[in-house]
């Protein structure tokens, strides 16, 4: 049973999604405004937040930023198709993934499960790369002995690329492996997550050592 916090202002959409997600076996709590959502979040931390971006009061972007500040709980946002402003803004605010409205519950459930799978370890041991220590069993990362808090998506991305140091991963490959998206996945998810990851593990994010860009192809880990 996954504890989901659904923040959506329209009462019928909220109830519809609650019904559908419950049917997929999730424990759904709902909130109708950003403020109410943040209160519910503080009262009891859910496993995952489904967040509508168009909210009265404090908007979805701000709610997302505050949830990110509070911890590493994954956020999936609901956006309108073609509204690039929403997608870009939501990803910048720290969302892990997005689903286009009107959201099909099956698609939303698949994304939820994909995000939650990212917290499963491969359990093969500890990888050491320079000052970076990645424990694939306990799913912890530390830099020069200091633990680095990563969201499940950032962690899965780091685990994926560090699996083969020097090997180039295309955005498409990363979308399929980390996000479990189909062939039309949005490569901005990858670019955005790489930036957030770099901000946490690189000494100089503008000149990355661990997650490097391979122009025109994608990303690779190291070589350190």
């Amino acid at each position, binding site marked *: 049973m996954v504890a989901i916090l659904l923040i959506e202002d*329209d009462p*019928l*959409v909220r*109830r*519809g*999604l609650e*019904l*559908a997600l419950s*049917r997929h076996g999730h424990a759904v709590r709902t909130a109708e405004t950003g403020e109410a959502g943040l209160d519910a979040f503080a009262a009891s931390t859910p496993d995952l937040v489904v967040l509508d971006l168009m909210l009265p009061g404090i908007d979805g972007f701000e709610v997302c930023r505050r949830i990110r500040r509070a911890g590493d709980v994954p956020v999936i946002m609901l956006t*309108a*198709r*073609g509204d*690039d402003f929403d997608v870009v803004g939501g990803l910048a605010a720290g969302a892990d993934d997005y689903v286009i*409205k*009107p*959201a*099909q*519950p*099956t698609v939303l459930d698949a994304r939820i499960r994909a995000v939650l799978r990212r917290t499963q370890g491969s359990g093969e041991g500890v990888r050491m790369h320079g000052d970076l220590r990645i424990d694939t069993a306990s799913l912890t990362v530390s830099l020069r002995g200091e633990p680095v808090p990563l969201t499940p998506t950032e962690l899965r991305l780091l685990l994926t690329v560090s699996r083969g140091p020097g090997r180039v991963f295309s*955005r498409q490959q990363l979308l399929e492996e980390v996000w479990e998206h*189909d*062939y*039309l996945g949005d*490569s*901005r998810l990858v670019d955005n997550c790489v930036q957030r990851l770099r901000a946490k593990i690189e000494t100089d994010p503008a000149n990355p050592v661990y997650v490097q860009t391979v122009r*025109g192809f994608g990303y690779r880990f190291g070589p350190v």
Partner: protein
Amino acid sequence: MKRWWLRGLRPRLLVAFVLVTVVGAAAAAWSSAGTASAALVSSAQERLTSGLTSQIGAITPQLAFPPDQATLDRLRGAAGANAVVTYQGLRSSAGLEPATEALRTAVRAQHRMLTERVDVGGAPWLVIGTPVLITAPDGTRTPSGIEVYSAEDLTAVNQQVQGLTTNAVATAAIALPLAVLLALLAARSVLRPVRELRDTARRLADGELAARTPPKGADELAQLTVSINEMAESVQTSMIAMERMQADAKRFAADVSHELRTPLSTLTAVMEVLETAAGEMEPDAQESAQLAITETHRLVRLVEDLMEVSRFDAGTARARIEEVDVAAAVRDCLRARGWTGEVELSAQEGIVLGTDRRRLDVVVANLVGNALRHGAPPVAVRVSAPGEKVRIEVTDHGPGLSEEVLPHVFDRFYKADAARVRTPGSGLGLAIALENVRLHGGTLIAENTGSGARFVLELPRENR
């Protein structure tokens, strides 16, 4: 390019002015030079004849009659250097014989002084012929039979006449640059308003509907300017009204589809619940649920397509350009929709194109879906890269597109047959495909192969 030099107003005006000036000046010069030279010649002639008459009149009283050779010689001496004097058989001459036979006959017959102009070696001469008359004491005059012919050189007079002509030509030549200057000034006064009107018309044609030319003066050009301004005014007014109506209609479509999205979100969410519960329902309730589910999906598709079209209309559609392997993208598109078995794909491998992956997928899916629905198998998709373009051809072997359908195949909600059974498409598929292609600066055309329909999509290799 025939007669290019007469194409502009300026050269035409210039040529006309110069022609008028030259002809006028030449006519004036010719006529005045003619009159002056005639006056010169006649006065010279009068002077010479009266000189001869007085010289002969002074000497004749001293002469014996009938004259002998010596008398004739004296008379010739008085008449001048180039004179000839004759009396019946006698003749006194300096060796020259200027008078023609015609003059001599005329003088003999008419018994009066006559003149004649002859040309001797290129020089003009005046020949004067006169009979010498005997005046009786009673005053009657009878011809003595003596005739005096004298020739005078007219070269000096002729030179004077030529001087006059040269002067006239020179005056005309001085008038010529003046005429050119005047022509240019006149041309400019006509051409400036014409050029301003042309510039205004060009700006209007380029869509700058506020372009006007302020009218100057009250001539025909000013009236034309006023008329053109009025025309532009009315065009602008109706364009603004039309644009506003169009914008209203487009915004309405965008607003409607936007508003529809919220209830559709609820419907989409609960349809799945309904679907999973349908198994336990009565058969008619189960069928009703199935109908609701199907129609909800269609409604969602329609609203999504409407919103997509609205974004194109509003100009807010943006392409998210990525490097895309075209063959792989087409293959993925077919596979994702379960069409791999129904479509023959021949794709040139390794074509990488900067394009929007999702939009390319939409275009290919619409074309192939259309071919599968309205055409007949085999449906073939060909991917190639001729020159600087990437070409995707979708060919079916159905009845093809009729002449009436062909021009409207990309129209929104165009139904080839009003009674046609409703298809799963929204009626916007090909319109959206075309808009997507245009967004990439490409072309999409529909044609008949003779054994079916073919859609040819071409995208430029270099994307902006």
